[in-house]
Structures are given as structure tokens and as C-alpha cells.
């Protein structure tokens, strides 16, 4: 009987799945036949911060098939359901393919020259009349390393402004500040291997099953193989993660700040800490308190060295006495008994303890403080820097680490943990860039919330947005959209599909995406991954690096980018790499990344990767006999911070009695410009819903799928109710997702932000809920 091509493809499908579970299957000719005409290449996934590797199959110039990359240590041949959209995502019907210029209410097709000339003329005019700080560039944790580096060099070394920000300000800024003020260096000391080697995992407000699915499945694999493994889910909402957890501990929103302090209180009270570790490695500090919430424009709050007071261990313990478990129960909703138990879990010498967190902790008006307290748990007990035992800050975007944090595309940053306010850092940067050190401004630029507010105030004249969708994703959205609609600034948007941001632009530029260009991403575990271009970008779309360099030429800064077209991606990376050599964040030569499934920095002298930082067992910067050494922290001593409880910016009251929380789900990613743009996938998860607790729903007379009106002080929206679905909030809480462009839920969100990280709190504000 004859086998059809379909049979061959099915054989390949099964073979790939078998490979992923470690059963190697002899490949008969049928599988070879299925692969005929297909060229395979590797690339990190376009979506979340897990950084799975994908094998992309191209035939006839189009992507026709994808495989989880069996050679990747991250995902070992598996992808999550978003893998279905990876290749479809590039071929949606309304893909942008020509530059468009606004003429009245119409967007008119234009040539690249016309568009770029116009942008340059607007930027030049603004700079001439109002100075370089009247313009800005807003990029993305989905930018490649090359794109981010080009952006930074252009803005800070060419135009001479620090008004460079990225959407990672909205997701990882609190984590970054927590790393910097604790360890003196950004990014985790552990890696994904800890998920395979540990036995206790405590999740703080993180729905890993949906937000980091492949990583979660590694955790579950560990749990299924080793029945003593415990997973504790501390959250404000029951989710798919909860289903797999050994214990679910419900908590009030913002309660983490109280619970953590109470747990630390118990550790100190009962002497559960590791005294030797503390003496060797820990400094105690008290910072600036009574912090604001960023609700007023231009409000300034910084924690400078002058604001920081050193404490003795005894002073620290005295300050912590107020945070009793009984107090903790009142404020966090976690029972005092449970707080006592958690203190014992964290100090259990027979177990390997890991904490995992992401947006629940970072998108928090005291997010930096919560990050600090999580590290304190591990530092006081000495449970850190060991295989299978580490705190792990999870990342949301594919290159928030590799691009925005490592290259430093923020208003206050330079590459490799350096800052604009430091003269030596500016000098080092200027030397590599070949510019006058005086060019790089010492003054910190506008952070994201202030950047968009500045448009409303008429102070920011030009903004160029690349690879992100702020006019859907920012909080208190109405104010910012109104300002854009009133044409208060000249807005350029580079993207691949029409979005809620392109619809407000003066110029829309079509971008190349993912494997339509060469690039490098860096994931959560410090793994830098490279890929080559595999297909042509459609129509006239061009990669963002090209767009920025063409713009640079017109602005008179072309000589900053002398890279020949053929070797541009490699050349940019190698120039950036110079910053990292000897820093403890050392990167490998470009060619090395082309060959392997990524490498975790710091790269050692022999070219191999580092899995665990700060430990003599794996980190070359630590000498034999030194054990653990936090060599990036001043005096090699990390900081345990006293951080008090301060309330949320807005809590439920008589008029607005419910907590409003926002987040993501598995199938759609962020604002759904990619996953939602493909009609089939948009239909798969039909639209945003509002999750309610069944008892709350009953009291309000709301049934499943009934329209519900949710109103905050800032906005109002109607969503269908979801009761008894994959997620159930605690009583008095409602939850929704932000992927649906027809439902701008961020209109309701408050633009309160953490005073140190400037990261907005998307997880809590007050709403009223009624049947619509």
C-alpha cells in the first residue's frame, strides 16, 4: 500500500515526540522523505523568557514546520502550545509591509526614504528647539542584542540623551534593582539545573504552569520522579499551577511584603539562621522609607548612599521584632501557624530550598523591597549558591535579560551593570564607542511612566516605539492614549502588525521578525542564544537595527555604525562583547554561539559556561578555598535590607470593594499582537474574561459568561464572567488578562509604581463589580 506524504509527516511527528522523551527511533526512509526539501535551523523561541530552542524547517522560502529542539538543555525537544503559533505568526494576513505616513486621518504608503527623512527632520527640529532631552526611543525586551546595543549607542553616544527606555521597565525593573542593591550585579546566581536538582520549590505569586510552561514541566518531571519534592504555591488566585502544587497558601494582594517580614521575624526569633554565613557574607542595611507611589507627575524618589544606614545584626533583629506572625496574619492573610511553618521550611537543613517569582512580586508598588526580602530568606539561612538551592527570579520576555538588562537600554544604564551617573562608567563606555565621554549625559533620562506622561505635558516632542505596544500595555491608559490622539508628540512605531500603538502613530514602519533576521537573545538563566536568518521578511519590511542605523546616518551619527552589511550582526555583538570581558558577565565570541544551543555567562577562559555564579565550584572568579564569594558586592558582602510594611497605593473600600488583578494566560502572549493576530489562534481563546470567585458571583447574581461591568476610578469595561474556569481568584478579588485588544483593561489600572524601580503595579487596585 502506498504511503502518502501525510504518512511521512506523521512519522516525523511521532519520531520527534519520541526523541523528546528520550526514546530514539530508527529513522526509516519514510522520515527522510518527509524531510525532503526542508532546511532546518535553530533559533530561541520568540515568546517568553524560558528561552526554549526551536528547530525551524523552511521549504520554498517559507516556514512550514517547527520542532522542539532535542539538543537544547532548556526544553529538550518540547515546546508549549505557543509553539503552534511560532511560524504562523509571521504569515498573518495584515502583516505590515510598507512604511506608512499619517496624512490627516489616513495612513498613506511611503518609501523608506520618505519615512526616514521625515522622522529625522522631526527629531532634528525638536533637538534644535528644545534640546536632546525632548526626544526619546522606547524599545523592548523582545529586541535582539544587536538592536538594543545600536539603540543605546545612538541615543546615549550619538544624540546625547538618556531618554532610552524599554518595556522591561514594566516587567523586570524591580528584579533588577533587587539584584543590584543586594548583590551588586544583575541576574541570577543559579540556573535551570536547580529545577532538576532541588527538592523544595516555593512560588510567590507566580503562575508558572501558564507563564513559564516548559520550565514548570521540568519542575513537575522532578516531582514525578522524586516523590519527596514539594511544591508550595503562595498566591492570590488558584491556577493550573495550584493543581500541581502540594500546598496552596492564599494571600491578600500586597501580603507578600508582610508575610516575608513575619517569616524572617521567626527565623531570627528562633535562631534558625546560619550565623557563620551571615558573619562572612552579610551586611545589614536600612534604606529610605515612607516612599511615595509615583502618582504625581515628576515625583522624585531615590535611595542614594546618603540615604542608606548600616545596621549591626543586633540592630536589625531589634527592628524586626515588630513583625510577629500574628501581625503577619492580619496583614497578609496567611495564618500565623503557616508563617511559623514557612520559617521552618526555609531553614530546613535537610532540604534544598528554592524560591521562584516573577510579575506578582515585580509589578508591585514595593516590588524592590519584596525582591530584597526574598533574598534575605536565602541569605539569613545560607541557602544560596548551591546546585539545587537558589532563589530564581523568572523573566517574562525572550531577551529582557540578554538585551535590556545586559546591554543596559534604560534611562539610567550603560552596558554591563554600569550606570550613567558614574563618571568612570561613562568614560569606559565612551572609549569603546569611540565618542567624547562628555557626550553621554550624566543625568538620568525619563523612565517609562514619566516618558509617556511627558508627552501629555507637551514636554516630549518625539518618540519612536519599536517592538512593543505601550498604548495597550501601560497603566492608566486613557490619559496616555488621549495625549497621543491629540497629536501632542510625533510618534513613530515599528512593528509587524497593526496594533493599538500603530493606530496612534504618525509614521508606521514595517519590521522584520524573529528568523527573518539574524539575532541574539538572552534568557532567564543567563543563556545567550544566537540564530541566523532563515526566511526573507515580507514586502519592504526591514529589521529594527537597519531602521535605527539609517536614521542615525540622517542625524549625522552614521560613523558610529561602520559595520559592513554582511558582517553587521557579528560586528555589533563583538563590539558589545568588549564591555563584558573581565566583568564577571563575560560573553563568548560570536562564532561559539552559532554552533551550540546557547551558553550561560560568565564564559570561562576555556570557553565553557558557568552554571552557578559566586561559588568556587563553578565560577572562575572565585579562587580555590574561598567557597562562596559575592565578588560583585562592595567588600564582597551582600546586603540584607530592613524593609518595613507600607500599604498598597489603592485598596478596596466602600465604593470600590474588590481587588483588581491583571495577568497573562498560556495561549496568548502579552498584548496578543502576535498570537492574537492570527485569526485561528485568536479564536482558540476567544477573548478576555473576568474571573470571579463563585460565592462572589452568586451574591452579585452573576452566572458564567454573563456580561460584567468592572469600574475603577480611572476607567470602566464590560467583560464576560468566567467562573470555574482554569483560574479562581480568592473572595473579594477579580482577575483578567491583557491580551485582548478589543478590551483595554489597562484603562482601569492605576499608574502607581515602585519608587526605586519605577515599575508599575499591575496587580492591585480597587474596582466595583456589577452585572452589566
Amino acid at each position, binding site marked *: *500500500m*502506498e*504511503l*502518502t506524504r*501525510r*504518512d511521512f*509527516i*506523521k*512519522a*516525523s*511527528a*511521532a*519520531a*520527534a*515526540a*519520541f*526523541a*523528546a*522523551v528520550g*526514546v*530514539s*527511533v*530508527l529513522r*526509516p526512509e*519514510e*522520515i527522510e522523505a518527509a524531510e525532503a526539501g526542508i532546511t532546518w535551523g535553530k533559533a530561541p523561541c520568540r515568546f517568553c523568557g524560558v528561552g526554549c530552542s526551536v528547530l525551524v*524547517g523552511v521549504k520554498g522560502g517559507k516556514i*512550514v*514546520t*517547527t*520542532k*522542539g529542539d532535542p539538543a537544547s538543555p532548556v526544553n529538550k*525537544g*518540547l*515546546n*508549549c*502550545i505557543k*509553539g*503552534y*503559533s511560532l*511560524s*504562523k505568526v509571521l*504569515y*498573518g*494576513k495584515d502583516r505590515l509591509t510598507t512604511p506608512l505616513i499619517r496624512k490627516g486621518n489616513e495612513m498613506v504608503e511611503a518609501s523608506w526614504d520618505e519615512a526616514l527623512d521625515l522622522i529625522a527632520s522631526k527629531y532634528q527640529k525638536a533637538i534644535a528647539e528644545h534640546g536632546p532631552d525632548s526626544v526619546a526611543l522606547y524599545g523592548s525586551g523582545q529586541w535582539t542584542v544587536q538592536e538594543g546595543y545600536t539603540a543605546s549607542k545612538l541615543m546615549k553616544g550619538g544624540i546625547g540623551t538618556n531618554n532610552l527606555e524599554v518595556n522591561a521597565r514594566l516587567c523586570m525593573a524591580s528584579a533588577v534593582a533587587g539584584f543590584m542593591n543586594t548583590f551588586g550585579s544583575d541576574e541570577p546566581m543559579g540556573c535551570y539545573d536547580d529545577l532538576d536538582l532541588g527538592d523544595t520549590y516555593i512560588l510567590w505569586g507566580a503562575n508558572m*504552569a501558564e507563564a513559564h*510552561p*516548559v520550565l*514548570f*514541566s521540568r519542575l*513537575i518531571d522532578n516531582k*514525578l520522579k522524586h516523590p519527596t519534592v514539594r511544591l508550595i504555591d503562595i498566591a492570590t488566585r488558584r491556577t493550573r499551577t495550584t493543581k500541581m502544587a502540594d500546598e496552596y497558601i492564599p494571600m491578600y494582594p500586597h501580603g507578600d511584603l508582610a508575610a516575608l517580614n513575619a517569616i524572617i521575624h521567626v527565623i531570627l526569633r528562633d535562631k534558625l539562621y546560619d550565623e557563620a554565613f551571615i558573619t562572612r557574607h552579610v551586611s545589614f542595611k536600612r534604606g529610605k522609607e515612607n516612599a511615595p507611589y509615583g502618582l504625581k507627575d515628576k515625583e522624585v524618589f531615590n535611595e542614594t548612599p546618603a540615604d542608606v544606614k548600616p545596621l549591626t545584626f543586633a540592630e536589625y533583629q531589634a527592628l524586626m521584632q515588630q513583625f510577629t506572625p500574628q501581625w503577619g496574619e492580619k496583614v497578609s492573610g496567611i495564618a500565623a501557624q503557616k508563617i511559623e511553618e514557612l520559617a521552618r521550611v526555609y531553614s530546613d537543613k535537610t532540604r534544598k530550598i528554592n524560591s521562584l517569582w516573577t510579575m506578582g512580586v515585580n509589578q508591585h508598588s514595593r516590588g524592590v523591597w519584596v525582591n530584597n526580602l526574598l533574598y534575605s530568606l536565602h541569605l539569613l539561612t545560607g541557602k544560596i549558591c548551591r546546585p539545587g538551592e537558589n532563589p530564581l527570579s523568572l523573566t517574562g520576555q525572550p531577551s529582557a535579560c540578554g538585551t535590556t538588562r545586559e546591554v543596559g537600554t534604560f534611562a539610567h544604564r550603560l552596558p554591563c551593570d554600569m550606570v550613567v551617573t558614574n563618571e568612570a562608567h561613562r568614560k569606559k563606555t565612551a572609549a569603546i564607542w569611540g565618542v567624547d565621554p562628555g557626550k553621554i549625559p550624566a543625568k538620568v533620562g525619563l523612565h517609562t511612566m514619566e516618558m509617556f506622561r511627558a508627552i501629555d505635558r507637551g514636554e516630549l516632542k518625539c518618540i519612536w516605539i519599536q517592538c512593543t505596544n505601550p498604548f495597550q500595555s501601560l497603566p492608566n491608559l486613557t490619559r496616555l492614549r488621549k495625549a497621543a490622539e491629540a497629536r501632542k508628540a510625533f510618534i513613530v512605531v515599528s512593528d509587524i502588525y497593526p496594533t493599538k500603538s500603530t493606530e496612534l502613530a504618525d509614521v508606521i514602519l514595517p519590521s522584520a521578525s524573529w528568523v527573518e533576521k539574524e539575532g541574539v537573545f538572552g534568557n532567564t538563566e543567563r543563556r545567550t542564544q544566537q540564530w541566523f536568518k532563515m526566511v526573507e521578511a515580507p514586502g519592504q519590511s526591514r529589521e529594527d537595527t537597519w531602521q535605527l542605523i539609517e536614521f542615525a546616518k540622517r542625524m549625522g551619527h552614521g560613523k558610529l555604525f561602520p559595520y559592513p552589511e554582511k558582517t553587521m550582526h557579528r560586528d555589533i555583538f563583538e563590539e558589545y562583547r568588549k564591555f563584558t570581558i573581565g566583568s564577571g558577565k563575560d560573553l563568548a565570541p560570536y562564532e561559539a554561539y552559532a554552533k551550540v544551543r546557547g551558553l550561560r555567562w560568565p564564559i570561562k577562559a576555556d570557553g565553557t559556561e558557568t552554571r552557578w555564579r559566586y561559588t568556587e565550584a563553578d565560577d572562575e572568579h572565585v579562587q580555590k578555598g574561598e567557597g562562596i564569594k559575592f565578588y560583585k558586592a562592595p567588600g564582597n558582602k551582600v546586603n540584607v535590607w530592613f524593609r518595613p510594611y507600607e500599604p498598597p497605593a489603592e485598596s478596596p473600600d466602600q465604593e470600590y470593594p474588590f481587588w483588581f488583578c491583571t495577568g497573562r494566560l498560556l*495561549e496568548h502572549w502579552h498584548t496578543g499582537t502576535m498570537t492574537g493576530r*492570527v*485569526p*485561528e*489562534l485568536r479564536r*482558540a*481563546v476567544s477573548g478576555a474574561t473576568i474571573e470571579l470567585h463563585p460565592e462572589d458571583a452568586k451574591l452579585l447574581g452573576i452566572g458564567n459568561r454573563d456580561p460584567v461591568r468592572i469600574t475603577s476610578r480611572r476607567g470602566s469595561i464590560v467583560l464576560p464572567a468566567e467562573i470555574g474556569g*482554569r483560574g479562581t481568584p480568592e473572595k473579594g478579588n477579580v482577575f483578567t488578562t491583557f491580551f485582548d485588544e478589543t478590551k483595554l483593561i489597562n484603562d482601569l489600572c492605576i499608574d502607581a509604581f515602585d519608587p526605586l524601580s519605577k515599575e508599575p503595579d499591575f496587580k492591585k487596585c480597587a474596582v466595583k463589580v456589577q452585572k452589566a
Partner: protein
Amino acid sequence: MRQYGNSYMSAVWQQLATQHDACVALKHYYIFMLYHIAMADVGDFNMCIDGGSMPVSGIVLTCAASSAEYVAQQLSGFSGVEIHGVLPDGKIVAVLEADTVDGEVALVTELQDMAGVVSVQLAYHNFEDFDAE
């Protein structure tokens, strides 16, 4: 056992028969699957539904080891799901077919929510006959 001349399946069978640990459960399920194929209309089995726009994916379902058999039995009733193996550690290898990518995603979502299923992951996805609408 009737051979349907599908050389892929027989090659897999041969390979797996030499891997002792895997072979017990897999043997069982191959017989199970072949039985179903034997019961199908011969005309259907030929599967000469050529090309068209039906995407194909290879997936791995993770179940607790004790639930895998039960899940596999449930799956036998799903159209568009073809089990290729059940491993002793609770993993099930299957091939999915649907009319559209939409359909594949809906199917995976349904499988994800089944009792006994811990996770469903994608290993391979092909849609080369699928036109962008």
C-alpha cells in the same frame, strides 16, 4: 497480528522491541492501536487524504505514572488523536491531526484539561499544506 504494510510502524516496533524497559507498555499499546486500525474500514485506513489543509503535530502528554493507562484509554475515543506509545514513567506520545491550527490548539487545550493529564507539550508541528487565509 496483521501487518498493514506501514513500514514506519514496523520499524518502530522493531527498534522498541530491543529496548526492554519501553517495550512492555509500548507493545501493549501498539496492539491496542493496531486493533483499532484493524476494526476501521479498510478504505479509511489507507489515509489517502492527501495534502489539503490538515496540520499534523507530534505531542507528549505527561501523566502521573499511575494515570497513564487510563488517559490512553480515554484518548482512544478522541478523533484526531493517534497514540504511538505509552512509557512506564507516564508519558504518552501521540500524533494529532485537525482541520486547522485552530482545531489543533483547541484539541491540545482539551487534552490539557483532562483528568490525569499533567501537561501537554508540542514536539513537532507541520502545516506545509496550509494556506494563510
